[in-house]
């Protein structure tokens, strides 16, 4: 057997010691009627053949297009040291640090992750990680209900549609109402969360809201009125949840600064490869006041018998293995290795490097905006953005397809991704980061010019 250590003699020796004749005897407890026949699967594959197979599958993907696709998963430059550190077996082949004395590496690294995120987010309690941004958002919403003992949450329609779906899936189970806050239709704030509508939703006295969720930047790349939304939420006795993209926090105000009680977000952008969807890093953080509500592991600093500084999993009374049906969540396995990856990436870049990443992405995005506007695809919304924005393109699905044939992955077709948001029907959501090249942008603009020819739509929104 591949990876197996046993020789036939070893097996014989073990069987003899146990006192059975064959290994079949060890399965005598499976009722005969329920025993399975041999698995109908291919024969074992030697590593050399497997390598060929996997190389062939990888080559069937086109992962090196000139890509402007973001929409919740972002390409960033990862210094080589990050993966080389992660490939150390002492990290990735360890289990949950149940024996802290021989797990100080993992434990200290989680404590440092919590600290790094606390700095970025401006919140003091950070969980050791959650599955991804969407599930962290759902857990954040659930926290607001537990903390307020209310069962209705308000979620902005400017939050990623997949995140909203996940919240709905989770909430259907828990029997909690989710209501959406619409977008501003026009004017300078077009496309951002409609605060007036939020106020109205919060004003229903029989149905008090537990939490209000906004994303910063929003799914459409726009900067949202986070502080105002938090004020409104608090005024109604609700908690404020910010769904954030952590890299942007090198520059943008942190959730703690604008009054968010809870922050959730996707940590993939912290140097983790897109990997077709995962493993990613769910970030979940809150104020000190909510520490007993936060789901998932927490690592704290303590001392050992000799007074040496050491780290340990703590406040476990919130967790399923102690509290069982009364636990804050059922989460057990989390995304520790990804939290480590994010920490190493942050440590490698440092605060200046992180700011450079954001600023360079913003600069590239501005170049992209200029090039696309010139090529006939102006922005769809007028407000400020960081490095992602929607542009207006008639017949976007076809244009997107034809650009792909020209080697350009022209972002996301909004009409397909958010079919229930007619205001963006003719939109492509595009993004640039520090790895976007001037050549990519030129290729996009040139191909777009070819594909849409003279049929450039008129500019809309604030630019109108």
């Amino acid at each position: 057997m591949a990876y197996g250590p046993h020789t036939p003699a070893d097996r014989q020796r073990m069987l003899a010691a146990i006192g059975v004749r064959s290994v079949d005897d060890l399965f005598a407890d499976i009722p005969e009627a329920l025993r399975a026949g041999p698995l109908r699967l291919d024969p074992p594959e030697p590593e050399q053949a497997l390598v060929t197979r996997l190389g062939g599958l990888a080559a069937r993907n086109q992962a090196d297009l000139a890509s402007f696709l973001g929409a919740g998963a972002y390409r960033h430059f990862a210094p080589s040291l990050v993966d080389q550190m992660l490939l150390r077996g002492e990290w990735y082949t360890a289990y949950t640090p149940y024996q802290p004395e021989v797990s100080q590496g993992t434990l200290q690294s989680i404590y440092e992750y919590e600290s790094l995120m606390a700095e970025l987010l401006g919140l003091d309690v950070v969980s050791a990680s959650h599955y991804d941004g969407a599930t962290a958002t759902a857990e954040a919403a659930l926290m607001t209900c537990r903390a307020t003992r209310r069962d209705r949450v308000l979620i902005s329609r400017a939050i990623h549609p997949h995140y909203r779906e996940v919240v709905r899936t989770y909430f259907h189970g828990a029997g909690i109402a989710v209501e959406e806050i619409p977008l501003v239709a026009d004017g300078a704030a077009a496309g951002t969360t409609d605060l007036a509508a939020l106020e109205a939703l919060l004003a229903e006295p029989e149905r008090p809201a537990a939490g209000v969720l906004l994303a910063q930047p929003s799914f459409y790349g726009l900067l949202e009125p986070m502080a105002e939304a938090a004020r409104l939420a608090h005024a109604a006795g609700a908690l404020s949840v910010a769904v954030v993209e952590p890299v942007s926090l090198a520059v943008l105000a942190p959730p703690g600064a604008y009054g968010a009680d809870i922050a959730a977000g996707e940590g993939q952008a912290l140097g983790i490869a897109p990997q077709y969807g995962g493993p990613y890093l769910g970030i979940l953080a809150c104020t000190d006041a909510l520490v007993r509500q936060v789901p998932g592991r927490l690592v704290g600093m303590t001392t050992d018998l000799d007074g040496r500084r050491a780290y340990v999993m703590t406040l476990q009374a919130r967790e399923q293995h102690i509290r069982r049906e009364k636990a804050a969540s059922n989460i057990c396995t989390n995304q520790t290795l990804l939290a480590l990856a994010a920490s190493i990436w942050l440590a490698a870049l440092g605060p200046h490097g992180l700011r450079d990443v954001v600023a360079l992405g913003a600069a590239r995005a501005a170049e992209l905006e200029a090039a696309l506007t010139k090529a006939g695809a102006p922005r769809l919304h007028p407000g400020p953005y960081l490095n992602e924005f929607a542009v207006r393109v008639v017949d976007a699905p076809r244009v997107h397809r034809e650009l792909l044939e020209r080697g350009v992955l022209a972002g996301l077709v909004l009409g397909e991704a958010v079919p229930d948001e007619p205001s963006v029907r003719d939109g492509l959501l595009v993004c640039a980061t520090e790895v976007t090249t001037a050549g990519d942008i030129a290729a996009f603009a040139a191909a777009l010019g070819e594909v849409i020819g003279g049929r450039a739509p008129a500019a809309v929104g604030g630019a109108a």
Partner: protein
Amino acid sequence: MSASGPRLQPTIFERSKPGRGGGLVPHPPSDALDRIPTEQRRERPAGLPELNEAEVVRHYVNLSQLNHAIDVGFYPLGSCTMKWNPKVNEWAARLPGFANLHPLAPDVTTQGTLQLLWELEQILLEVTGMRAVTLQPAAGAHGELTGILMIRAYHEARGDTARTEVLVPDSAHGTNPATATMAGLHTVSLPHEDDGGVAVEAFRRALGPQTAAIMITNPSTLGIFESRIGELLEAVHEAGALAYMDGANLNAILGRFRPGDAGFDVMHINTHKTFSTPHGGGGPGAGPVAVNERLEPYLPAPRILRDPDGAFRLERPGERPTSIGRMRAFVGSTGVLLRAYAYLRTHGGSGLAEVTDDAVLAANYLKHRLAESGAFDIPFEGVCKHEFIASASSIKKRTGIRTLDIAKRLLDHGFHAPTVYFPLTVDEAMLIEPTETESVETLDAFADALVAIAEEADRDPDVIRSAPHTAPVRRLDEAAAARNPNLRWRPAAGDWTPCPD
């Protein structure tokens, strides 16, 4: 400073010095951020550490050496199945064609990965005997929630809305009852018989029209195959409820028992256990959920489909309205799943059967070694599956030495301790799972160490009570950690200083 000298490390913040590091990405134009409104900007930079490359690397290299890991030595964590994590899988996951693929990239650009995931689904169906599978869930517990939400949806679709209870054996993992709660259902705990199986009488009493499902771990967390499983499942279905199998222990039954054939409606698989994907000190994992035809309509969206022309694609939004919806932002933890795929291809059908045979053989051998020694209590006799329970109950009565002490003393022998005090139903429990990838020499050395510690408990209990003696730290003050939680370092605040390079 590992080969000699001090072992513990300062925090990464303490290694920081303002003005160090930088220069890895090109400098942006100085006006790049001018268009961001002031009120949206942060006032002070985050207090992130500033280090040069050497300091970063030394920090993580030295920290890593403080860890026990399967790459370093034996790790007999019961229920956690710490089997060998093959190196070729790490290579595969890093192939740029896989790693750089965006989750929302159009299907025509992702055929290689879609094919891999689709083939993985087929393999899992053959292994489980089920009808359909979702690869979305990020872990076992996430799979449990997915499964129970599907069960809810099933009952709801039939208008059968009074089913609010989930039966869970008392030896179940904590995630099972916690899952029931998350899905808005109530947990009813089932006691066990002396042989470790579910107490049938109590089970029958608990079962009724209010029962939505039973969640059974099979083999159980006691390492015992539920021999009365046929009877139980029949009763469950008769009562109109569904049966969920917690598949955390699938390693023990590959090619020997297919839950789908036996009548389970839904189960999850822990790829980070059964299929050896690395657990990374706490995660990631993946928790594919396999279902029979009853639950297929409710699978999360999007599924991976194969068109008649052989092309693969993701289900489109709204294509299958019966779905419970999305369980996560994107299609799955593809990077984890492809490692599982590589593992499954490496073993093939015959290899998987050997995996189970050898895992069960090793567990029974180790159990035999301990039973024979007389040093430990072995609460459940007879064959075990891939893991078994030993207990220090008698040792504790005799010497005061507890399972916890023995666990710590094992560290001095260079072994990780087994899972301890789980399941909660056994006094001074040690749940020992050797897995199929440990040599008989290692099994013997581990048994010898346990027996030696048991003897030491009589002879020199203080050395056990004060263990470990060779680890980087001694036992920790966990009470202080919880009383006065210190959950983050407070670095000196950052400053908008110019970039150092």
